[in-house]
């Protein structure tokens, strides 16, 4: 059991646009163990979802992998054929999305949509697949599942629809489940239930979970490790507890502190939130040999604008690495 379930090394993705080639992902590397929960964190446009789509072999038509490898159980998915990827998708690696309203087909019952996956990948007949669909609906805690399989998506609430999506994604007991902002469209009490469900089912089925989010609170609840991404690159990686306690990259620090977190001691009132200036740079500047965060960074120096920082171990912390010329030291 030495080899990890998934090993991504130096993954690069390029888009071909009217104005030529642009880099979207730049040397992204990470590993994922069986049953592990990792989170990709960053603002929109930083490459979190693109990394996930690359794993699934679902890059948009104008994108292609420009380098690196995706080693999944000893097989390189970058070079895998389309028919092989079709076998893997929904079966060994599956994905749920942000918008449960649009990711279910409105003209079929939810039972049929769950059964379809089982018929396709597991070769079950219709009857067996439907019976299994009821089990799955029960597993995702939809009450009265046997009666609900004949419901159409519009008869369910947003939270229930997301549960159905999870049931579909987990139908074939995949090794990896990618959840792309799965609760952004949902209410906060529903979000808490969905997270609890994902954690429990992930542990039970030994499914590794990749959670894509911009919410550090969600990361803290859901993941063991996190990968902070900025402008198509990995800027910090490590255990969630370590990074929240002592993040090394100024961007990670900004992400953690710029959100008003609830405190029980209400008298502790911040007058201003610490903010990260500016916005994510346009995609056309992603590939440059510099720290792309430097223009927004309070610690930036000549070195930051002149060269790309290497990913290096944070002193004194195992499995905690950062790509920064002037990282914060350990400790707060």
């Amino acid at each position, binding site marked *: 059991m030495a080899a990890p379930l998934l090993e991504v090394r130096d993954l690069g993705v390029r888009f071909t646009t*009217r104005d030529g080639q642009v880099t979207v992902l730049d040397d992204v590397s990470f590993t994922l163990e069986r049953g592990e929960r990792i989170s990709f964190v960053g603002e929109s446009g930083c490459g979190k979802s693109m990394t996930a789509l690359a794993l699934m072999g679902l890059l948009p038509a104008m994108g292609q992998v420009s380098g690196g490898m995706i080693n999944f159980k000893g097989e390189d998915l970058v070079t895998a054929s389309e028919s092989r990827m079709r076998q893997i998708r929904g079966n060994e690696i599956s994905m749920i999305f942000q918008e449960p309203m649009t990711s279910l087909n409105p003209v079929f019952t939810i039972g049929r949509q769950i059964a379809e996956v089982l018929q396709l990948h597991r070769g079950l007949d219709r009857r067996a697949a439907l019976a299994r669909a009821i089990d799955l609906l029960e597993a995702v805690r939809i009450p009265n599942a046997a009666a609900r399989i004949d419901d159409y998506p519009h008869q369910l609430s947003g939270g229930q629809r997301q549960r159905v999506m999870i049931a579909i994604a987990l139908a074939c007991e995949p090794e990896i489940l990618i959840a792309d902002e799965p609760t952004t469209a949902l209410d906060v009490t529903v979000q808490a239930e969905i997270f609890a469900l994902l954690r429990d089912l992930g542990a039970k089925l030994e499914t590794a979970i990749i959670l894509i989010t911009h919410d550090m609170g969600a990361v803290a609840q859901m993941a063991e490790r996190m990968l902070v991404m900025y402008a198509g690159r990995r800027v910090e990686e490590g255990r969630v507890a370590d990074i929240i306690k002592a993040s090394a990259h100024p961007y990670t620090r900004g992400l953690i502190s710029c959100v008003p977190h609830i405190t029980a001691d209400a008298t502790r009132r911040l007058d*201003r939130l610490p903010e990260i*200036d*500016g916005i994510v*740079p*346009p995609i056309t500047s992603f590939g440059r040999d510099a720290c792309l965060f430097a223009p*927004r960074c309070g610690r930036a120096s000549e070195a930051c604008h002149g060269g790309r920082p290497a990913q290096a171990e944070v002193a004194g912390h195992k499995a905690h690495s950062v790509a920064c010329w002037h990282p914060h030291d350990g400790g707060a």
Partner: protein
Amino acid sequence: MAVQRQMTESDSQTPRAQHPLREVLQMFVGNRAAVVASVILLMIVLAAVFGPMLYPTDPFEMVWAPFTPPGTDGFILGTDYLGRDMLSGLLNGGRVSLTIGLVAALMSVFIGISFGALAGFYRGVVEEVLMRITEFFQVLPTLLFSMVIVALFGASLTVVTIAVGIVSWTAVARITRAEFLRIRELEYVTASRAAGASNMVLMTRVILPNALPPIIVQAALMVGSAILFEAGLAFLGLSDPNVVSWGQIIGSNRTYILDAGFTVTIPGLAIFVTVLSISLIGDGLNDALNPKLRRR
């Protein structure tokens, strides 16, 4: 201090102030078929406007032997069954056909926008009544209805134009209503309302400009269909007998289609090329005005 720090978000670059219409124009120019069609249509319009002045032969005068083939005896497009000059007929008929198309389209756009805007904006009883009226006109057999109008009020150019306009405004009304229903729920409309805009201002200055793109496309297509419609009426002999139009030339020569096909095909070709050009332009406008396609 706070203020200065906040400036940085926009510091990277300042884009030029580019009007949305300019962007539309750029998209349109990128569509080659639409550009070619525009050039062809422009030539047709110029020929219809200035042609009769440069080529002053009366289209009703019998100038030569009937059925003179094109290119013989100095008649570029030949003569028809009464020996009238086909080229002159085509140029003068173009004026009439294009005018009817344009005026009828404008008329239906005006009626359609009024109905659609009021129905989409006010909802409730107003919407019910206006949309029932629209549906009434929509289910009328259009050709039959316009034939009735022409039969009742006489076959003058004005009546024919009105007849064509009345039977074709319903599509505009439906599109306008749908756009109004969509846009009135957008937050910038609420913002204008919260700022104290009157209903008239909301309809004409806030919602309508944003609802125009699909209406413009529909209007362009309608010019083409109005030309066809008039041609159909004229072919049946229901158009103004005192003016030449393309449809009328076809109609009056139709019995000789086997003996002298050119008398029918030449005006037919004119209609075909004009309507096709207008359709392609409408298509190009559709692409250029559709914001979903704009970011390719």
